[in-house]
């Protein structure tokens, strides 16, 4: 098993993308050292291990650095054979999981940040509508992936649970800011549950 000193996560406590790495390591029962990064004053360590994007999270495993949260989660799934599977065992289900992760990161979740920062009433209305449309798609995805069980991953937390689950805290904050229940149980009852 990897010793805590072998595995480090460079990140920020409140960042959902960092939380993904932490969730995946916890599922695999991997001890790690968390190094809090000040994103306004990036450390030499961050610049050394992510010279391309200079962003968190970065997973450092021995002398190797892995960047980008979805890639980190897949790496953890591949590199450590402890604990339950993170990605589905079936190739088609894996393809679906990767598709939905990209949808969440590229199309759906970015709207949440824009909504939180928007002061324009009409723009907010339009963004909420788009988020609800996406939520309905994610609800369908959940029903398909979970196959009647509690998580996207079935009876245990899997890749999509990590990807979407890490966004929930920021989603809740945005709900308070705009006064709209975004994870609306009338629109997405299974997901809300």
């Amino acid at each position, binding site marked *: 098993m990897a010793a805590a000193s072998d595995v480090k996560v460079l990140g920020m406590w409140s960042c959902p993308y960092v939380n993904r790495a932490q969730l995946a390591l916890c599922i695999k029962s991997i001890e790690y050292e968390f190094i809090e990064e000040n994103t306004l004053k990036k450390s030499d360590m961050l610049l050394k291990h992510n010279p391309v994007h200079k962003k968190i999270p970065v997973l450092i495993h021995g002398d190797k650095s892995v960047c*980008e949260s979805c890639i980190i989660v897949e790496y953890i799934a*591949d590199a450590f054979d402890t604990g339950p599977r993170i990605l589905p065992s079936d190739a088609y289900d*894996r*393809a679906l999981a990767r*598709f939905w992760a990209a949808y969440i990161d590229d199309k759906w979740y970015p709207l949440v940040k824009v909504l939180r920062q928007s002061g324009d009433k009409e723009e907010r209305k339009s963004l909420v509508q788009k988020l609800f449309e996406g939520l309905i*798609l994610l609800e369908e995805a959940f029903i398909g992936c979970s196959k009647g069980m509690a998580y996207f991953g079935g009876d245990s937390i899997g890749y999509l649970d990590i990807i979407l689950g890490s966004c929930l805290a920021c989603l809740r904050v945005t709900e308070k800011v705009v006064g709209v229940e975004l994870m609306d149980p009338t629109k997405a009852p299974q997901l809300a549950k």
Partner: protein
Amino acid sequence: MAEVKVIGSWSSPYTRKVEMALKMKGVEYDYIEEDLKNKSPLLLQHNPIHKKVPVLLHNGKPIVESMVILEYIDEVWEGPAILPKDPYDRAMARFWVKFIDDKCIPPMWKACWSVGEEQEKLKEEAKQGLKFLENEIKGKKLFGGDNIGIVDHAANFIAYWFPITADFVGLQRLMTEEEFPNLYRWADDYCSHTFVKENLPDKDGYIAILKSRYRSIIIWHYLSLINYVTFLVRSPHAFPIYEYEFK
């Protein structure tokens, strides 16, 4: 025998990389050409969210997004590996695929179809991305090592489609041999590879497609200018914005 179909577009690098991957694995498939200006019920049924090509249909099940498709092909069929076996090497391959898709291709493509200050800004943005790739390919024949891998496929636009497009529109000094000698050499090695060479769209055919798109862009610029002048007094936000879809 498994039924494999590809819904694609003849000129699209994203479709071509899927076809190359299937051929490298020795997988037989039916190809269905899609008219992107008049999308078929088949495409809309199998990719209702993005409504884009390529779509791989395997025994009726759709897989969409070219990189997701390539990973699926690698996992399902035996044959030359598209992704490395080592977990860290796989993570690095995925990293560069995402980097090429997010940071290199969009500004390179958009630079071809913009002008003036906007074009200069896009050129600079693209060059920043290409510098990282130049460094990454140093000392390697291909991004995948001795064999074509997923990163080579991800960058196929840079190797073949971009030089033709840039030449056609007269875009200069974005990816020069002086500034990017290793990428230039890689592009040559990639395009000369047996499977790639046999599966690229012919240059003249691609240029014919560019000509028809170019006409549309010129018309849009002209109409946009008329629109802008007409609505200038009424509303400064009336300038039409168009999203030029590449895939």
